């Protein structure tokens, strides 16, 4: 018991939680934007891979770290655009298109990586983002090491939470996105383009998802690996609902998930012999389901989610 308390009070635990949460924050924000506009994007898992691969590859080819971030976002946007074209004007099944995009994005990334680097025996490395060491702030007692020893990408993620919240709740664009996800006719009748809003939301959302992948290869680690995304994208899909499509709660959900993972890693060394390690691995998922059941009563779905809309059709 003391152990758990010690862990929970340690700075490094919270720093780790935030670090583990960062890719999820990007992903869940991206998924949230898509779904707010009424489109489920199951391409997320593949878009993570594409972001991870392209961002890393760009840096490796000499584009610089921020260049890599940009490339990752563009790659994500490209696959988002593909999903958008298939699901918005063509109105195809969002499930199939999404799973198809995941398969496509993943295999394109792997194939490209392997074709470009056919004979590596260990993955080439880049110089990744370093923790932002801010003069005074980093020396603050607790927050110092939790917040100010993260890399710039974690900061970007936190900034994006605020930005997405602001856009959704305080700007005309946000109102329009929420409206198009609830009732596309409301937007159409006011002279706005349903297609434009939805496609835009998916493209931007997918770009954010790709940043989640880029974080893995450019901040959490410094090389690209096959299978390194490992289901993180799917977790974001669950977190969106946990978050009731709100950026604030999305941050909370991602942090909770990260905290459990961090706790799990720490507890396993202690009690790994007594309880199978897998029990800890399950906890975040089980808790997500419990949280979902509690949240479900109040969860208000974007009503138009999954429903295609065609102009001039009943």
């Amino acid at each position, binding site marked *: 018991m003391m152990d758990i308390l010690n862990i929970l009070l340690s700075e490094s635990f919270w720093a*780790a939680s935030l670090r583990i949460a960062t890719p999820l924050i990007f992903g869940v924000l991206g998924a949230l934007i898509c779904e707010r506009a009424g489109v489920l994007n199951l391409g997320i898992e593949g878009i993570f891979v594409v972001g991870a691969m392209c961002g890393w590859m760009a840096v490796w080819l000499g584009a610089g770290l921020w260049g890599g971030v940009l490339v990752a976002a563009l790659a994500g946007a490209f696959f988002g655009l593909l999903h958008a074209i298939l699901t918005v004007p063509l109105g195809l099944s969002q499930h199939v298109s999404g799973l198809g995009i995941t398969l496509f994005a993943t295999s394109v990334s792997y194939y490209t990586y392997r074709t470009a680097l056919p004979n590596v025996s*260990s993955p080439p490395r880049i110089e990744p983002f370093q923790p932002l060491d801010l003069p005074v702030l980093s020396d603050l007692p607790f927050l110092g090491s939790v917040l100010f020893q993260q890399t710039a990408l974690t900061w970007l993620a936190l900034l994006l939470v605020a930005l997405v919240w602001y856009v959704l709740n305080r700007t005309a664009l946000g109102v329009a996105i929420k409206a198009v996800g609830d009732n596309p006719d409301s937007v159409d009748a006011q002279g706005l383009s349903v297609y434009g809003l939805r496609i835009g939301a998916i493209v931007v959302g997918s770009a954010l998802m790709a940043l989640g992948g880029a974080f893995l290869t450019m901040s959490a*680690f410094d090389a690209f*690996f096959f299978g390194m995304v490992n289901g993180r994208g799917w977790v974001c899909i669950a977190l969106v609902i946990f978050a009731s499509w709100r950026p604030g709660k999305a941050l909370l959900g991602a942090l909770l998930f990260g905290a459990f993972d961090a706790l799990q890693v720490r507890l396993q*060394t202690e009690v*790994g*012999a007594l309880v199978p*390690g897998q029990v800890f691995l399950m906890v975040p998922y089980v808790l997500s389901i419990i949280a979902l059941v509690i949240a479900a009563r109040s969860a208000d779905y974007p009503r138009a989610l999954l429903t295609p809309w065609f102009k001039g059709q009943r």
Partner: protein
Amino acid sequence: AETVKVAAIYTLPVEQQWISRIHKALNAAAERGDIEYVFSENVANTDYERVMREYAEQGSQLIVGEVFGLERAARKVAKDYPDTAFLMGSSFGPVGPNFSVFDNWIHEPSYLTGMVAGAATESNVIGMVGGYAIPEVNRLMNAFMDGAREVNPDVKFLVTFIDSWYDPPKAKESAIAMMDAGADIMYAERFGVSDAAVERGVKAVGNVIDTSGDYPGTIMASALWHMEPTIDKAITNVASGSFEAADYGQYSFMGYGGGSMVLDEELVPADVVEAVNARQAEIMDGLFRVNVNDDRPVSDN
């Protein structure tokens, strides 16, 4: 001699440490002109048998791979193609006439790197991050622990398995957690651990491949696996028509050059280097036998 047609089937990408060693040895043989080499990587277990049969049908003379997930099926295929030689990473024994096995028997160098680690730790806590608790991994970890205990009876170990062969960010998080818990030497069974060590300025010990170039000043020592003796032996046997079902495991022993240990003399004190070298000589001379223990290692509490 004629070139031998060799096909390899890997269940993971060729960057994976373990596989990279086989891939490297086969590439070397191909460069020498001894073999014609083709391979399939990342083959799902479900598809593995098909790929084996395809290569056999296409006339590969030697098929190399790993059948840990499909021991039965692989032996069935070998039976159906008695004229093809199979050399497979496996926990089980060979089956006549044509199914041979190998494994990464580098518990000896692991023991030696354990000695280095045991001597180096100041907190007397060593962290170990593994993939899965399978015999091949447990064996090396246990040997490493034995080595460390030989030079430092007070040493304690923290052990975690990340339940994945391939999740560097996760391995890194696990390593960080261990260093938070006091570990000052990390046993890097997986990719990602050394990165955490670098970040925290802690020393690490490598496994299977030599990554000291990637982490200068961090990797004190590494237990290396060399597939060349195994592969070359098999190729020679196939070329001469004398390939038989056999356990090639011994070719991974230090005595055959299948395992070795490197250490960074700038990071390891001279007296430790001396002790390790002495032990190494004893192993080579057959005077010291490293214990083989396949049980899952657990943290000391």
